[in-house]
């Protein structure tokens, strides 16, 4: 009797879950389609052939195993920045500063990568990786603390900190940490040692595998631990969180720190897996892409993975598109912005396609007034 009742409940849960899946996945999928459609119209207006452009884009992203590897490679830091934004979002924080945290992560990991010598890879790789992550975490603690103690909204402070991060990392790459090898005139650090480089196994970057593991870890943290419960409660209803005895201020700072940790690790992986050193201008835009990816993935850590793959594919295919179809690769930025709009404006998409609204946990970002 008891068993029958519980199995019945399980079936009902699964059915409800499937219905919910369409209700929540339908919108992002259709948002991508609508964005591609409008992108095609823009291409047409600017005199390019959308078909040529998109097929070149597709080939460039998935055409060969090498291209596929590049897509995964591009997607890897994007998973991290997407996770960083999505994670902060769960606590009602909009971390636009993933960019700056990522830069510090990339720089710190490069520094550990070239300056610490004589370590075996299995120590050097994680050391540089976590060093980068820690740098990002520390940098993200600033807007967290500012929000908690002064009420300064994280959207403005993190954007300002992005500009400051560009300046500071630039200073290091062009000053104390500059690559002094003969013939170098650009601002960049020395190359990291081989012992710090993250290898690929048969065109699958190890970093990508790591990213997926981290995404699962983030999911576990959010939904299977008490810390995650606190973070989500603070995001959904900070007053109730206070009522329940949760430490809201601490949770806000902790969330920012963990978010910065993820962003910093993304920067480190980019340094150790792709660029091989820190060089200003090589990581631009990754943090901002994180916003699109997080929202496209419905701010769910596992949703971030396909979203990052999609944006990664667009990045990987963009050069081929520029080369063979003669379309400036910035069109992918336009398409991304449109995706962001349609996902955020899910009312429009639901109305066009008549999808019922999912009863999902909707976080409201705080306006200035609720900052404190």
């Amino acid at each position: 009797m008891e068993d029958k009742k519980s199995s019945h409940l399980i079936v009902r849960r699964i059915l409800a879950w499937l219905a919910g899946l369409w209700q929540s996945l339908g919108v992002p999928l259709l948002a991508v389609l609508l964005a591609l459609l409008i992108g095609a119209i823009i291409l047409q207006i600017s005199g390019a052939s959308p078909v040529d452009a998109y097929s070149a884009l597709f080939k460039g992203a998935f055409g060969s195993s090498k291209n596929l590897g590049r897509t995964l490679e591009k997607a890897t830091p994007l998973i991290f920045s997407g996770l960083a934004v999505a994670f902060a979002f769960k606590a009602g924080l909009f971390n636009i500063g993933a960019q700056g945290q990522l830069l510090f992560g990339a720089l710190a990991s490069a520094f550990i990568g070239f300056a610490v010598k004589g370590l075996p890879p299995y120590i050097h790789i994680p050391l540089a990786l976590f060093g980068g992550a820690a740098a990002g975490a520390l940098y993200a603690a600033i807007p967290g603390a500012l929000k908690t103690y002064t009420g300064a909204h994280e959207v403005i402070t993190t954007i300002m900190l992005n500009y400051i991060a560009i300046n500071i990392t630039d200073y290091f790459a062009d000053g104390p940490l500059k690559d002094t090898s003969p013939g170098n005139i650009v601002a960049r650090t020395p190359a990291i040692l081989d012992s710090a480089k993250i290898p690929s196994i048969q065109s699958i970057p190890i970093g990508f595998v790591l990213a997926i593991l981290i995404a699962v870890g983030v999911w576990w943290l959010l939904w299977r631990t008490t810390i995650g419960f606190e973070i989500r409660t603070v995001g959904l209803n900070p007053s109730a969180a206070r009522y329940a005895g949760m430490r809201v201020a601490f949770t806000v700072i902790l969330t920012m720190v963990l978010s910065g940790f993820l962003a910093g690790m993304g920067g480190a992986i980019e340094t150790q897996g792709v660029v091989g050193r820190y060089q200003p201008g090589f990581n631009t835009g990754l943090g901002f892409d994180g916003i699109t990816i997080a929202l496209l993935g419905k701010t769910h850590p596992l949703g971030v993975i396909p979203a990052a793959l999609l944006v990664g594919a667009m990045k990987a295919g963009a050069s081929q598109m520029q080369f063979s179809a003669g379309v400036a690769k910035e069109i992918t930025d336009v398409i991304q912005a449109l995706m962001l709009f349609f996902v955020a404006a899910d009312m429009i998409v639901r109305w066009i396609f008549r999808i019922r609204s999912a009863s999902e946990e909707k976080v409201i970002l705080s306006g200035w007034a609720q900052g404190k």
Partner: protein
Amino acid sequence: MAENETLALEIRHVTKRFPGVLANDDVNFDLRRGEIHALLGENGAGKTTLMNIVYGLYSPDEGEFLINGKKVEIKGPHDAINYGIGMVHQHFMLVPVFTVTENMILGSEVTSGPSLDLNRARREIIELSEAHGLDVDPDALVEDIPVGVQQRVEILKALYRKARVLVLDEPTAVLTPQEAEDLFQVMHQLTDKGVSIIFITHKLKEVLNVADRITVMRRGRVVGHTTPKESTQSDLASMMVGRDVILQVEKGAAKPRNVVLEIAGLTVEDERSIASVKDVSLQVRSGEVLGIAGVQGNGQTELVEALTGLRAARGEVQLDGQKLPFENPRFGTEHGLAHIPEDRHKHGLVLPYSLADNLVLCTYYQKPFASNLQRNDRAVDRNAVELIERFDVRSPSQYVTAGTLSGGNQQKVIVARELSRPISLLVANQPTRGLDVGSIEYIHNEIISMRDLGVAVLLVSAELDEIMALSDRIAVMYRGEIVTVVDAGQATREKLGLWMAGLHPGNA
């Protein structure tokens, strides 16, 4: 025809649906010139919805309106104002940071050239307030004036727009009994001048006192018409609820024992260092209900928030002989304090969470709901199933979100969570506000049975009837101070009303 002309307003066959609710179902209502027509019903009966439709805030799905016998269309508040309809909403529609004058003229501004003519507006307001005996300071900021005066501003606002039909939505909720009497005087003066008044309320005594006619609504429908002469309180109550209602809460005598809550010299100040609670000292014993009476906004919220850890304060508070730290809600949770908060949507529940998560909102980190940092969903589920059953929460399962439940069931979830822990003190702030009679009865009974189990209960309510029905002792709060504490047996409505207006027992 001749009879039609005496009708100031006629509502015919109005139906309004909200998703999942039939808020108004074929409602008919008429208002004669110069009468006070009470619209009586429980919370959620559809009274306010109907009036919001009359005022143009909602558009009806079906139905029509006649004003002075002529069919009119009301597409928005603008039309309603033009047809001479004015409405004083239950939650005042005043901009706190504007002056009285600015609030009065908003939407009907007096200008000279492109500029606002505030001086002329001020003169007009002074004239108007003198003509009706409603005294206001046109230059005061609304946030600085007491709620009673704010209500005057609201009535003047309607009169300033030349309202001939005035809708008053639960106007006495924020007043002392004496202030309410004053308001009834004003209402009679207005009807003498030919204004017709729709008086929305759920308070039976008031209806019998002031109304010329009574219309009763239940679950979106009109269920009866009557007059004060033809009916009694219990008639009206059963018409309103649909069954016989026991107007009195059944309870035995209290058996107070040791002091559980000891408050000494509690002061709460806001950011501008204005004290909202001033040097309050109180004791609550095990096995008794101490009710705090007072017009809302006299420091009750701040007092409760200070006790439950939500607000910084000064002074000494002891719970079961232990010092209760401020700004630490968890200490209370772990030391036997239960809190039914005033605003269930703000503090009490996380609406997008499942009932199961809401039921462990304060204890999620304790065994068996979690061990170390890892949550134990099974235990959370089991707890939910048990509490939903025990506290009679009407819900399809423990997985639905709290936001999908009715107000009464939401409140039961909070009650279930708070009372299922071992507790020695229950702090309940407005525990039945906005609920239907069934839920009110349920929660009142729970509070009394907690008392009988030896829990100390601190009850805050703006409903004097609720305070008088449940309390063993009553403390009256006015402007942050405790005016007096009396045994419930010695308190009458009149005395409480005077104390709520700040008159000290010695002076009265």
